[in-house]
């Protein structure tokens, strides 16, 4: 490779050197992450005495996990993107609303078809570890396997590179295939970036896959893996470290195979690059590479409150270590108290014997008497049987517990934002301070999550532009104007993406008190001010105060509802109903003359009236019957008299 490491594909040796360097560089970060993850899953060790007269019990409080859950719950499962219109004109707003809907539907479908819960997991990592990572890639081989082609050499290749099959696919096919972009969650400890200043130049991501998976993949060049003659369970058990190398142009897959072959009972030491303590290193072999051509990394790095990991150290380490220590202390106190409670309420008995009474001069006390429940027993006067550990209240335990909880709340963000009382908060002023502090932490995280959501949407749009396959379709089920569910395809057209639209993102759920406050603010902002008009326009109120996406669509719905209401309340409806009723009463009351036998004069009169042009000689034609006609607006009939006349003829017997 040239020195242009931004855009060239590195050789195997360069990958080996680069991977070794980054693995060592990020070791401290990964150790910190491992400690946090252990604490979150309750795997932190708690020291306890070995030889005791009681059984120590270990309890993990999971206090850190509880804080994380609370914090994560304040943010939405998926971000909502808002496309900012280019100009205040109506057409620009409509266009931005359509693109906004399409992007949000695309994100939702991408999430559904991808790794599962990608954004939420990456957001939690951003909160806990100060950075969450996702890889956004075009994946035709995963979702569109039928479009992967085989060339004359028998090698599979992605159609974006050489084939026109994607470009030639019609809209029906594209709708069937769905959105060809997916998102993969990447644990931060498996991601080894290389930054130059603020720019992510290249990165190495480690992913473990079974050897069976690697050998099966038609896109991979596995010729160098054929020497590993495994079968059966060994194929599943052997985990291969796959390195995803990504720079501004290339996405390459390398497999790290054992560098040292130890052919002892066919045992090879496969390197595990996800471990911080790498026992053996491997040799990279190129499996597959393609040009994504985005001009930037395909990874979306979601920063937390300290801006993410640009170097091997981060201010989150201080906060994290503090939380770890406090959580550890909390676990130990909880374990001690729990052990104490257990020892008190399942008591060990201490028996005091009087040596003189018992006839002992010197030596050890006798063995304690084994007393069964309900059993009578006797002791000498002055002797005693009592529990070894007596129930005694210790206010220090409660005080210590409250302190730890309070401090963890300050470090991690207080639940007081949701109205929960925290220990030691006695006054409203103090609570307001806590709310301010918690909100400040949330705002920083919210801002960074919002930026990352915009980056995510931008990455998706860049992929669509580069793919150059025309419109990309996503499907959503929504409620139609009649209140029933209906499906709708939204599309993103690459022609609308030059330049990329400006976007905002909403990542946080409003608190229940926020919604009431927002509506109150909206109403006050729209109040008439003694002839000066409202303070804010409806569009601004909806977009900014109520965070409604596509406020012009909302206005349209209001206009339609208002018009409907006016029509329904007007006299038009009443008049229509009266007409329909009159018609019903008239037509339904008309008798059915099937089988009627009128007098000949009556029959003749009916014929004359129905056929005023003259009936000629008397025939068996009789006037028409009137089976009650359909209600509502009667359909226009051609020559109803003739038709009705034939019906009467069929139904009457002129036997008079």
């Amino acid at each position, binding site marked *: 490779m040239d020195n242009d490491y931004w855009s060239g594909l590195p050789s195997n040796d360069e990958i080996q050197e680069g991977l070794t360097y980054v693995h060592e560089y990020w070791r401290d970060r990964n150790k910190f992450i491992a400690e946090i993850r252990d604490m979150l899953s309750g795997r932190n060790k708690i020291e306890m005495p070995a030889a005791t007269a009681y059984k120590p019990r270990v309890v993990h409080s999971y206090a850190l996990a509880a804080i994380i859950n609370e914090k994560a719950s304040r943010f939405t499962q998926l971000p909502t993107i808002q496309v900012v219109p280019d100009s205040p004109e109506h057409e620009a707003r409509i266009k931005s609303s359509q693109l906004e809907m399409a992007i949000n539907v695309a994100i939702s479908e991408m999430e559904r078809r991808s790794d599962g819960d990608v954004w939420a997991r990456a957001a939690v990592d951003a909160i806990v570890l100060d950075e969450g990572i996702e890889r956004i890639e075009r994946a035709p081989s995963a979702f569109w396997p039928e479009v992967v082609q085989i060339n004359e050499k028998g090698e599979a290749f992605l159609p974006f590179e050489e084939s026109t099959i994607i470009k030639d696919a019609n809209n029906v096919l594209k709708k069937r295939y769905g959105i060809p972009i997916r998102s993969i969650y990447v644990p931060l400890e498996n991601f080894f970036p290389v930054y130059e200043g603020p720019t992510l130049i290249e990165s190495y991501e480690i992913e473990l896959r079974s050897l069976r998976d690697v050998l099966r993949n038609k896109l991979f060049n596995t010729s160098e893996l054929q020497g590993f003659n495994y079968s059966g369970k060994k194929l599943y058990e052997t985990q291969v470290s796959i390195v995803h190398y990504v720079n501004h142009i290339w996405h390459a897959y390398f497999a790290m195979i054992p560098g040292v072959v130890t052919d002892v009972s066919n045992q090879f030491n496969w390197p595990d690059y996800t471990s911080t303590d790498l026992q053996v290193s491997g040799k990279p072999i190129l499996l597959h590479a393609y040009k994504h051509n985005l001009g930037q990394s395909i990874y979306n790095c979601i920063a937390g409150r300290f801006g993410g990991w640009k170097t091997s150290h981060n201010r989150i380490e201080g906060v994290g270590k503090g939380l770890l220590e406090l959580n550890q202390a909390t676990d130990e106190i909880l374990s001690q108290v729990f052990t104490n409670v257990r020892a008190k309420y399942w008591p060990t008995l201490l028996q005091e014997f009087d040596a003189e009474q018992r006839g002992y001069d010197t030596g050890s006390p006798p063995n304690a008497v084994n007393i069964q429940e309900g059993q009578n027993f006797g002791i000498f006067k002055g002797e005693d049987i009592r529990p070894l550990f007596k129930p005694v209240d210790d206010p220090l335990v409660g005080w210590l517990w409250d302190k730890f909880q309070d401090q963890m709340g300050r470090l991690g963000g207080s639940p007081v934002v949701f109205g929960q009382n925290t220990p030691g908060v006695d006054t409203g002023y103090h609570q307001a301070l806590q709310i301010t502090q918690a909100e400040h932490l949330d705002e920083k995280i919210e801002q960074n999550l919002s930026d990352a959501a915009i980056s995510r949407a931008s990455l998706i749009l860049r992929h669509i532009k580069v793919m150059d396959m025309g419109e990309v379709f996503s499907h959503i089920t929504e409620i*139609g*104007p*009649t209140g029933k569910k209906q499906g709708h395809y939204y599309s993103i057209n690459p022609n609308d993406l030059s330049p990329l639209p400006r976007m905002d993102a909403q990542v946080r759920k409003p608190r229940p008190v926020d919604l009431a406050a927002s509506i109150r603010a909206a109403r006050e902002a729209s109040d008439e001010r003694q002839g000066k008009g409202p303070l804010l326009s409806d569009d601004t109120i909806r977009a900014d105060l109520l965070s409604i996406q596509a406020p012009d669509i909302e206005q349209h719905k209001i206009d339609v509802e208002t018009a*409907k209401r006016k*029509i*329904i309340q007007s006299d038009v*409806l009443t*008049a*229509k*109903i*009266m*007409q*329909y*009723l*009159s*018609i*019903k*009463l*008239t*037509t*339904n009351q*008309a*008798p*059915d*003359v099937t089988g*009627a*036998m*009128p*007098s*000949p*004069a*009556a*029959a*003749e*009169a*009916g014929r*004359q*009236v*129905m056929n005023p042009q003259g009936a000629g000689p008397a025939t068996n034609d009789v*006037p*028409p*019957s*009137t089976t009650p*006609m359909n*209600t*509502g*607006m*009667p*359909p*226009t*009939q051609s020559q*109803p*008299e003739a038709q*009705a006349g034939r019906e*009467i003829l069929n139904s*009457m017997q002129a036997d*008079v």
Partner: protein
Amino acid sequence: METTFIDEIEQICEEVADSLYKQVIAITETLAPDGRGFGQELKSIDEQLDDYRKIRNDTTSWVSWIQNKALEIGNELQVGGVDQETIASINPVAIAVAFAMDYSSRMEKELEKRLQ
């Protein structure tokens, strides 16, 4: 096919009219089961037959009867707010003829009973 607002409104009119029609019929049948209106006297069957014999074999009288009935039906519909075009399409003459045939048929059966 997607229903429009106009379709919805017409549906509402249909349903309300249908419901009101049933209520009117039910009220009428309860309050006047023999069909006698307020201030009217129900004629005996003999009186009815007497009236019928006057027009029974007279085509011209029958034509007048039918035309008067058609006029009455048209007026009822006008009072209900139905426009002329709609009235014409309902064809009150055909309805009047049906009434005539029904009336004559009933009276002929009564006459036949008298003869037996």
